[in-house]
């Protein structure tokens, strides 16, 4: 394509670069502005106008490999690393005509719920600078919320798309495990990881998801299925049965979140959906199981960062052990080190049965909980995405467990592989609240229909 052949794409590229430039205060983008502009213009000249995302700028979380920009996982251990290969999701975006609009900041290796655990500094909440945008896809969420891009790729291991989407007032979708190829997503907890999409609307998020979904011969855990087909926006939700799990609406829940949920539930009823109280009795065990399984897998997945083949070698490295100790000791931040240690511990001989195996049993029970509910005619689960609105920066840094509890309503979908999404359902004192749908495996279309309808029915950006 020549410059004259793609004027719309060029205009889109320039506009995206300009908008991105205005988000500097958020520290949401890890790509230097100059590099971004140069790359966007170059991409615009190459991009094919027939693609369904022609000219759409999409930011990419920096734990997803790109050829256009370095991939750092917001870690010193990958500082400046240029991947020689590209994530399948990114390749599919480009093939559909999208422009890769830089790399978004994240919690180091996607480990965190506030994007404070980034080696390159925390991300600022676009609506209130003292607060966190959520995490780990906080950079992606902030860029979408700030209007810099209509959509961004994030990744989830325990809610890392939905939770920041909820905090920032945007839409976040985590598809069924296996819907999107994980090839090129730097692995954290491989059995939980899934690339997801953040979008300013259900439609923006859904159409990007549709493009990146579908079979991929490079990922054995990716299902051999056609790309997701987008549903039409429904007139109403008649015939839908929506379950409200009591474990996700505890008596002591945040009053503002409660009000927003109540309004959303009323709207769902008014749209014609039948709403039922249900129970997912093993919910309380989800966070403990999650914080065994995810670190266990992480401890193994992050073994490859040893300073031998790629990335910086840190320290003196006088012998092999020193090379490992110093590179990994200095290269990984404290939260990553903590999870590697926990993961190593729970997989150790003598502890495996008590922790890892037990956590896998919990996982099976959680999946059974959901099957029981769906088998009784419930189509979708509705819950708050997070127990609270965005918390203040620094508030939970000293208390890992408090930080981990930010994932309490989201990690069940990762443990069970079910599709789930967060949609804005109002604000409390100016801070967004997200409502979560959890769907049945491979039935993202039903979940999207409900989200489309709810999005139209309530003013998601207004205080309740």
């Amino acid at each position: 394509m020549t410059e004259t052949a793609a004027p719309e794409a060029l205009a889109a590229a320039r506009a995206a670069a300009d908008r991105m430039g205005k988000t500097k205060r958020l520290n949401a983008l890890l790509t230097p502005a100059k590099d971004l502009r140069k790359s966007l213009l170059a991409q615009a000249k190459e991009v094919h106008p027939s693609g369904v995302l022609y000219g759409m700028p999409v930011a990419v979380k920096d734990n997803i490999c790109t050829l256009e920009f370095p991939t750092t996982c917001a870690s010193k251990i990958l500082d400046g690393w240029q991947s020689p290969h590209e994530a399948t999701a990114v390749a599919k975006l480009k093939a559909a005509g999208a422009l890769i609009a830089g790399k978004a900041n994240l919690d180091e290796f996607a480990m965190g719920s506030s994007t404070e655990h980034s080696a390159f500094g925390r991300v600022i909440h676009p609506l209130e600078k003292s607060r966190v945008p959520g995490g780990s896809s906080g950079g992606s969420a902030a860029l979408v919320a700030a209007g810099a891009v209509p959509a961004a790729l994030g990744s989830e291991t325990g809610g890392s798309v939905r939770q920041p989407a909820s905090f920032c007032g945007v839409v976040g979708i985590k598809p069924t495990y296996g819907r999107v190829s994980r090839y090129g997503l730097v692995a954290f907890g491989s059995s939980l990881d899934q690339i997801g999409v953040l979008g300013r609307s259900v439609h923006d998020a859904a159409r990007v998801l549709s493009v990146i979904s579908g079979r991929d011969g490079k990922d054995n855990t990716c299902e051999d299925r056609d790309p997701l087909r987008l549903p039409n926006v429904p007139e109403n939700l008649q015939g839908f049965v929506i379950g409200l799990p009591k474990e996700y609406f505890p008596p002591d829940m945040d009053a503002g979140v409660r009000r927003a949920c109540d309004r959303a539930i009323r709207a769902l009823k008014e749209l014609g959906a039948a709403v039922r109280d249900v129970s997912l009795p093993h919910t309380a065990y989800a966070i403990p199981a999650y914080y065994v399984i995810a670190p266990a897998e992480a401890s193994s997945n992050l073994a490859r960062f040893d300073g031998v083949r790629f990335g910086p070698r840190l320290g003196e490295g006088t012998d092999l052990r020193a090379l490992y100790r110093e590179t990994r000791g200095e290269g990984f931040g404290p939260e990553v080190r903590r999870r590697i240690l926990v993961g190593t511990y729970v997989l150790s001989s003598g502890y495996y049965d008590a922790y890892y195996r037990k956590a896998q049993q919990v996982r099976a029970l959680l999946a059974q909980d959901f099957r029981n509910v769906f088998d009784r005619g419930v189509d979708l689960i509705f819950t708050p995405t997070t127990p609270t609105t965005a918390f203040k920066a620094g508030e939970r840094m000293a208390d890992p467990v408090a930080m981990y509890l930010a994932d309490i309503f989201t990690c069940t979908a990762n443990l069970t592989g079910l599709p789930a999404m967060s949609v804005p359902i109002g604000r409390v004192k100016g801070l967004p609240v997200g409502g979560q749908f959890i769907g049945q495996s491979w039935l993202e279309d039903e979940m999207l229909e409900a989200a489309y309808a709810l999005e139209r029915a309530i003013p998601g950006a207004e205080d309740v």
Partner: protein
Amino acid sequence: MTGAWETVIGVETHVQLRTASKMFCGCATAFGAPPNTQVCPVCLGLPGALPVPNELAIKLAVRAALALRCRVHAKSVFARKNYFYPDLPKGYQISQFDQPLATEGMLPFLSPDRGAVDATITRLHVEEDAGKSLHDRFPKHTAVDLNRAGVPLIEIVTGPDFRSPAEARAYLSTLKQVLEYIGISDCDMEKGSLRVDANVSVRRAGDPVLGTKCEVKNINSFSYVEKALTAERDRQIALIEGGGRVEQQTMLFDAKENTVRAQRAKEESHDYRYFPDPDLPPLIVSPEWIAEQQASLPELPATKRERFVSQYALPPQDAAVLTASRAVADYYESVVHAGAEPKAAANWVMGEVLGDAKDHQDQLRAPPAGLSQLIALVKGGTLSHQSAKRVFSELAANGGDPRTIAESLGVIQVADANVLGQWVDEVLGAHAAEVTRFRAGETKLMAFFVGQVMKASKGKADPKLAPKVIAERLGAA
């Protein structure tokens, strides 16, 4: 010294599967390429890369398992074996742990001490190889070559079944033969495509309890197997007889010194933290597919040996030689199927053909149909055995039709009594004195006359026909 002691040995064999590409990526597996030229993001363990199993490798592994009469499990699980080493790119090896591909097999072999013995195959699993660390390439540095990283292997583990180093070796020879037969590996120890570790323990003869075992590693050649195991056995016996106690540890064989030495404890204090690899769904093989593989397995050496004895009426020693490799066995059968008499064909293959192969990189050069014709020419009296060997050399070197070769060499036997009669007349005419003596009853001179006829005919006269013609002439005269 060993009389009062019993040695107990179990063997773990790593076998490189014969695939063009690696276990979890498309990189080539060819041996001897320049360092780090057969690598990609997957086998380099780059961030974001994911493994995809090689279906051919799975098939070869299943065939090996079936040949070793294992139970092949419909579902097996890939597991990660975690440890840090520079030649292990991901920081873990993809292997199988508590749910291996196959278990409970057996391999009958001939023990030099005990005759026919069944080795039990405890398990057979699939895994990927690590790269190579080269400590002597650059001074004070270790170089890493990752060409081998990700090459498909199977590990075959036996029970503590062997009672001597020689017996362990005999098992390994049989195993190698079977694996070569089914074509799953080239089993070349020098190239590392077959690697052997062994667990050795000793106990007083008759003691029902096993002694403490040590693992012997670094046995890099077939000829070292017995040496390494003997060294370790002797070390343990000497230790106990000297009042010491065997401690469980890993011993490394030093071929130069012909000794074993303990690996440093630091090198072996691993907790591998095995867990199911979340990148790879369980490996499912259908019973139908397993049955298909079973049905398409070639005839294995033991069965083929027995069949050669019964079908071709060969002595067991001949059958053993002819079935030592599948190529030779197939060659032999081609010669027989082309019409040769089985025992004659066996003699030819074991003699001339294998002799020729030895000098020509194990190639079986003479076309089987040609050899079969050659054998027929000898049997029919057209060629003497001596001449036939000359024809064979030409046949092996350049191919062609044996009769034409024999003609061009001028070695066709003459079995025409008229033609032969001329040589006989010539000889009798030249040896009147001997003729007289013969007629006087000195019949043993027949051999002399035959020899002279052969000489006069330059070896072409049929040595069976010649005495008859001579006798006729002398009787008629």
